[in-house]
């Protein structure tokens, strides 16, 4: 009994002595890195079409969201965003991207990619594949968040139902006419198969007749890809 009591006292003493040991703090000691910040509203790709924009729009901006791991820096830090060889888009022709920088004292940046309206986009889609590489300031971050794709085009596809009643409303199809309509309406929904309703077709026709006159007053007749003057019927 005496032995058991001694053992119990010894155990209690041991617990008390261990309880006050100083704990080492866990500190982040990885190299700072950067990655594309992706959420549902910040996806990893954008398909952009100038088709729904007026002719006066020659460029637009897509914003890339980037974040760092580690601590904020005391100085601005450059991010190495590379254009992959598989890209079909050409810098300076289809897009421009200024040097991306994480500013001192910050953890994230919204950096612009300026996409350009180029004549060759009227019949092609151009894609830029961006990826983050190491830089002297920042390493590559999470491996699944290092790439971003931007596709840009200015072309339209003939709606499958541009015949019958649609042709009665809008006249014969041409890509230039289609382009003109979409640019004025701000939507590709110009026929029933593309999302417009029957009553809306009548409204679109009125708007096109007025807008084409305004266009011609400034630019002269609008000639389509077949060399034919674009017109809308009076029915």
């Amino acid at each position, binding site marked *: 009994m005496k032995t058991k009591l001694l053992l119990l006292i010894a155990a209690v003493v041991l617990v008390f002595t261990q309880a006050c040991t100083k704990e080492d703090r866990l500190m982040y000691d990885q190299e700072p890195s950067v990655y594309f910040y992706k959420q549902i509203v910040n996806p990893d790709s954008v398909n952009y079409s100038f088709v729904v924009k007026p002719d006066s729009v020659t460029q637009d901006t897509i914003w890339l969201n980037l974040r760092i791991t580690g601590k904020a820096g005391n100085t601005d830090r450059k991010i190495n965003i590379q254009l992959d060889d598989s890209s079909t888009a050409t810098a300076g022709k289809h897009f421009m991207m200024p040097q991306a920088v994480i500013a001192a004292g910050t953890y994230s940046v919204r950096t612009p990619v300026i996409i350009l309206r180029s004549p060759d986009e009227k019949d092609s889609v151009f894609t830029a594949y961006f990826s983050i590489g190491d830089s002297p300031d920042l390493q590559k971050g999470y491996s699944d968040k290092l790439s971003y794709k931007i596709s840009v085009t200015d072309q339209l596809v003939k709606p499958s139902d541009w015949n019958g009643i649609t042709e009665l409303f809008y006249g014969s199809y041409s890509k230039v006419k289609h382009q003109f309509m979409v640019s004025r309406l701000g939507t590709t929904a110009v026929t029933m198969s593309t999302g417009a309703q*029957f*009553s809306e077709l009548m*409204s679109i026709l*009125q708007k096109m*007749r*007025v807008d084409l006159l305004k266009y011609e007053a400034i630019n002269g007749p609008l000639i389509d890809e077949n060399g034919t003057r674009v017109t809308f019927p*009076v*029915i």
Partner: protein
Amino acid sequence: MKTNISLIYTLLLAMILTACVKDKSNDGFLDINTILISDSTAPKSLLQFDTLKINPAIAQLHGSGESDLAFEWSLHQNDVTDPYPIFILDSTRNLRKNIDVRPGIYRVVYKVTVKSTGVTYFHFFPLTVINRFSEGWLTLEEENGGGDLSIILPTDTVFHHIFSSINPEVNISNPVQVDVSNSYGVKKLYLFTKNNGLELDYTEMVKVSDYTSWFWETPVAFQPQLYKRISDGTSFIINNGLFNVRVEGGFPGDVKYMNALPYPDNKGDNYFLAPLVAVGPQPYTGGKSPYTAIIFDTRSKGFVYLSGASLVASFASFGAPAAGSAFDMRNIGMDMVSMDEGNVRFQHNAVFKDAGGEYYLYQFDANSNNASMSKQLITDDAPELKGAAKIVSSKTLQQMYFVNNGNIYLYDIPSGKARVIYTLAGGETVTYLTCTTKSLLVATWNGTAGKVYNHSISPLGDFAATKSFTGFGKIVSMVNKIP
């Protein structure tokens, strides 16, 4: 053990002894005063805004005094589900209450409580509240910086402030027009203000929608000048001088107003229409001409028509006048003062003013391919017309009524002469004028209050009798609402 058994016996004995004590717990109950409610005075239906009177009979088991009774009348709407409206009407013995709820099917609940006992008795009365405003002349008025509607019932009873009482949260300041429409049997009621348009439920006059949901592409500036339905399938709004048409019937999907129609001859939207329209025959009703509607452009100072021959509503230019035509519909060259259908259907009287202030009457027939009928200077023999702004046409005779210098004149078209047939009260100006087959309705304003005069028209065009109605604001528009 022996002790325990003794204890159990003792407890059993105590229970047996106490079980037979007489229960006196109901000695304080009161005798119930049973009440029987009966009635033969309650109506089964009532016009909205009428007074509901119910005088029920109450029979009591004990005595006949009613000082110990408390009453409550409530109205429960039965034809809606969510929310289920309950309106407390009164706490009187008999009911005498103005019923201002929306038309519908209700149940009146009469609750009688005996105060001394707290016992409550109910009696139920079915009640249908009928639309008070199904028929009558609706007047749209400026009032107290806002707007409102009144109605003159066929019984000559007038109800004011009906829009604001039904839609207290909706402002209709700067009112422009009230109109009704009937499209394939569906009736609608519209209000237009300087920068807004409202559709009201035809029966209940509750706001249903506003103009922002009416267009495929909402106009940048909404300044409605005229709304008109010209057929079951076609209605239009002249908005800021431009013509937005709505065509419905026989095709799927939503139907909305189109973008503004382009003017013929490659003018696009370079036009500004007068807020008046001459309606012609409609294409599917056996009409003779293609002129479903004829409108005047204030810029080119000529008429254009809405083609009834097209699948999609379109403006079209009149052709060159045939030999011997009275005038060229495309080129009037003067400012429009008024336009109204005359005494023959589709034949219209349009009055124009030249640069010198002289008035000309142009008559045309929207039911004839060769529309122009006659043209004459009318201020030479009837100088009283000079300066007149409100001119309407008789629907029975070749006559027009106009207002000038505080008088109402009758202008006889064949003779070209005008004469005073009525003198307005001092200080009154006419704010609205419309002519039916039976009467001339004149809305006036004296600076503080509005009146409506309903002048019935004699077979010769004079006023046979006059009724007047008071209590209006400044009336800007009227329409006859039919059931």
